[in-house]
Structure formats: C-alpha cells, structure tokens
C-alpha cells in the first residue's frame, strides 16, 4: 500500500470517527432562549430525569414557547408549571402511573382540577388506565364547565362503568350545547344522563 493511499485512509477514518460526535451535538433546540431561561430549562430537565419524570415534556414546552415567539418570562413560567404539575401528578397517581396518565394528570392539574379528583379517579379505576377520564375532565373545564361539576360528574360516570368512547364523545356534545346557549355545567349534566352505564353486578340498584 503506497503512502498516498495510507494517508487517504487515515484521513477518512479520522473524519468518519469524529463526525458522528460533531453531528450528534446538532442544532441546539434551546439556542433561541436567553442564557437564564436556557439554564432554567436545562436544570428542570435534569431534575425531571432525576425524579423519573419525562424530561422531554419540559423541553417540548420550551420548544413550543420558542415556536410561538413567546417572551422569555412566559417560557420560563410555562416550563416551570409543566415540571411542577408532572411532579404533583406523579405524587398523586403513584409511581405506577404510566407516561400517558402522567401527561393527562399534569394537564388536568394545569386546568385547575384538584388533586383529590385525580386520586378519586385512581381509586375507582379498577386497575384501568385513567388517561381518558383525565383528558376529558381537562377538556370540559377548558370549555367552561365548573371544576367541581366536571370532577364529580366524570367520577360518577367512571365509577359507574362508562366506556372510554362514551367519555370521549362527551366534550364535543357539551361544546355543541354550550354554543346553543346552554350553561356549561347544565350541558354536561344533561349529556351525562344520556350515557349508558355498565354497572358492575354488585352495584346494580335493586
């Protein structure tokens, strides 16, 4: 092998071995944040990882803020809210809560649902995932249904065996009634009465 080929091979190998490391650093998703907001996001990401929480939720909220051209103070406030709500959701739902339940629980807490509503749903969940009732609950409150009415109604439906599909249809129907002029709380109560319940045998009223 002549010297030229040897030199070429060595250069090729050196480039190929170092390039992955350079490429892996990639475009920094937080490059558009100022230094203090960036430091906050990185610290919250590290804290989330240390606590077994999904760190990408923090990063995603920062990316969302950057994409929406939000002020740095708003981004800092939003990522902090996300981190704290995930932490509270984990404390409320327990260590066995899966990622979808955690995400739905954190969103419900951000919507103002009290932690007792989450723990009540968990306690009456019969071991099933409570992601669907949590997502529906957050949606209803966002549409203006009072928090206590929404929490109580969804818990009743869930405990009585309402199916996921029935719960998922509820927000759109309630939204239509609200657009037609109904009060949000009344709209939910009226629609909830139309959902067929599948009570467990021991709970069927005599």
């Amino acid at each position, binding site marked *: *092998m002549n010297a030229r*080929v*040897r030199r070429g*091979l060595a250069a*090729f*190998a050196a*480039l*190929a*071995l170092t*390039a*992955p490391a350079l*490429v*892996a*650093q*990639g*475009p*920094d*998703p937080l490059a558009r944040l100022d230094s203090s907001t960036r430091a906050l996001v990185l610290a919250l*990401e590290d804290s989330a*990882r240390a606590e077994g929480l999904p*760190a*990408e*939720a923090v*990063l*995603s909220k920062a*990316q*969302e*803020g*950057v*994409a*929406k051209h*939000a002020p740095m103070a*708003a*981004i800092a*406030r*939003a990522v902090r809210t996300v981190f704290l709500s995930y932490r509270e959701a984990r404390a409320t739902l327990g260590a066995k809560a899966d*990622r*979808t339940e955690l*995400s739905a629980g954190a*969103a*419900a807490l*951000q*919507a*103002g649902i009290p932690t007792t509503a989450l723990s009540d749903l968990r306690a009456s969940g019969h071991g099933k995932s409570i*992601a*669907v009732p949590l*997502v*529906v609950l*957050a*949606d209803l*409150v*966002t*549409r203006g249904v009072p928090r206590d009415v929404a929490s109580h109604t969804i818990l009743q439906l869930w405990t009585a065996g309402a*199916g*996921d*599909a029935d*719960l*998922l249809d509820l*927000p*759109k129907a309630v939204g239509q009634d609200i657009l037609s002029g109904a009060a949000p709380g009344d709209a939910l109560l009226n629609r909830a009465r139309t959902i067929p319940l599948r009570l467990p045998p021991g709970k069927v009223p005599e």
Partner: protein
Amino acid sequence: MTESARDPYIEWIARQGRRQVELSSDARARVMDAVRAAPLPVRPRRGLGWLTTPRPLTLSPLASSLLAAGLVGLGVIGGLGVTHRDGRTPAGQPAAVAADPQLPVHDSLQVHRFELAAPGAVGVSLVGDFNAWNASATPMTRSADGKAWTVTVQLPAGRHVYAFVVDGAQGGSQWVPDPAALRAPDDGFGTPNSVVLVGQRGTT
C-alpha cells in the same frame, strides 16, 4: 568453490549460454513484424479513467480496521435518529413523519390523520410535541376540493398536544387548535392547543 571444481555439465551449460547466436536477416524481420502486429498497451487516462481502472489493493490489518471504523462512522452519520446525550432530538428533525400507506407500520407507532377545513389558507402545517413544534416539519396537503388540508402521520402511543399553523393569503400565519379534537388546558402562551390520545381504546 573454485572454477575448476564446478560440475562439468554446468560448465557446458554456461558455455552454451554465452555463445553468440547468429540470426539470419529473415528471422530478425519476422520478429519485428510480430512485434509491430501486437496491440500497443493502453495508457490509463487521467481523471475518470484513473478512478475506473481496476487495480489490486493490499491492506494491512490496521488499515482494514481504520477503513471499517470509517464506514461504521459514516453509517452513524447517515442514521435517521440523531439524538443528544439526553435523548432529545434536534429541533429540525421531526419525530413524526408523514406516513406512507404502502409501508408497514411499526408496532409502537400508529397512523393518525389530521384534517383542518381552511379553504382560504395558502398553506397549513401540523405542529406538536411530536415534531418539536417545528412549523416546517409536517406540511399538510390541500384536499382535491380545495376546502380542507390533511396529513397522515405515524405517532407513538400516548397523549399528544398539537395545533395547526395556517398561512393566510396576506402573508401572516396563525396558530389554531383543531376544532374537532379535545382541548388542551391553557398553554401559557395564549394560543390554545388540541389533544390526541393515540393507542387508547377510544383513540380520538
């Protein structure tokens, strides 16, 4: 060994080898004709010719290892999933890709179709936590009747938050939620988002 001690037979061979051979002029002419008739060797061309001409290459074990390492490195560069040390993907690289209905869907991904009625828009894209909220990552396609915009993507199971970015004819763009989907709580930035549950029994 001295000259006189050599084998007589070898001495005879050596003498025969040193003997001058007289060639006739006819023999010399025949040899020269044969040489002229033989095709000339082709000189390799510069540039592309040099690259395409086959030639033997020998490699030491060290050089072979370097070459293999280089090829592996190139494979890593070309890999689809460039990630940071903490597992996050660069902003410009969407985790969700437009789904090809001809390709098999990975078990952990599910195809989901998004649609927005926006007849006056000049462009619509899908943004969400699955594509790092990158407005250029997942453009939507105008339907045949021109009234709606759609895109089909593969998403991992779970709860995803998303919105649409609608480019108006006047040049501005607007973030809008999906009117047909579940609503997400306040995003903290003043623009409402939507929620999709993927992989649940009642996928929305």
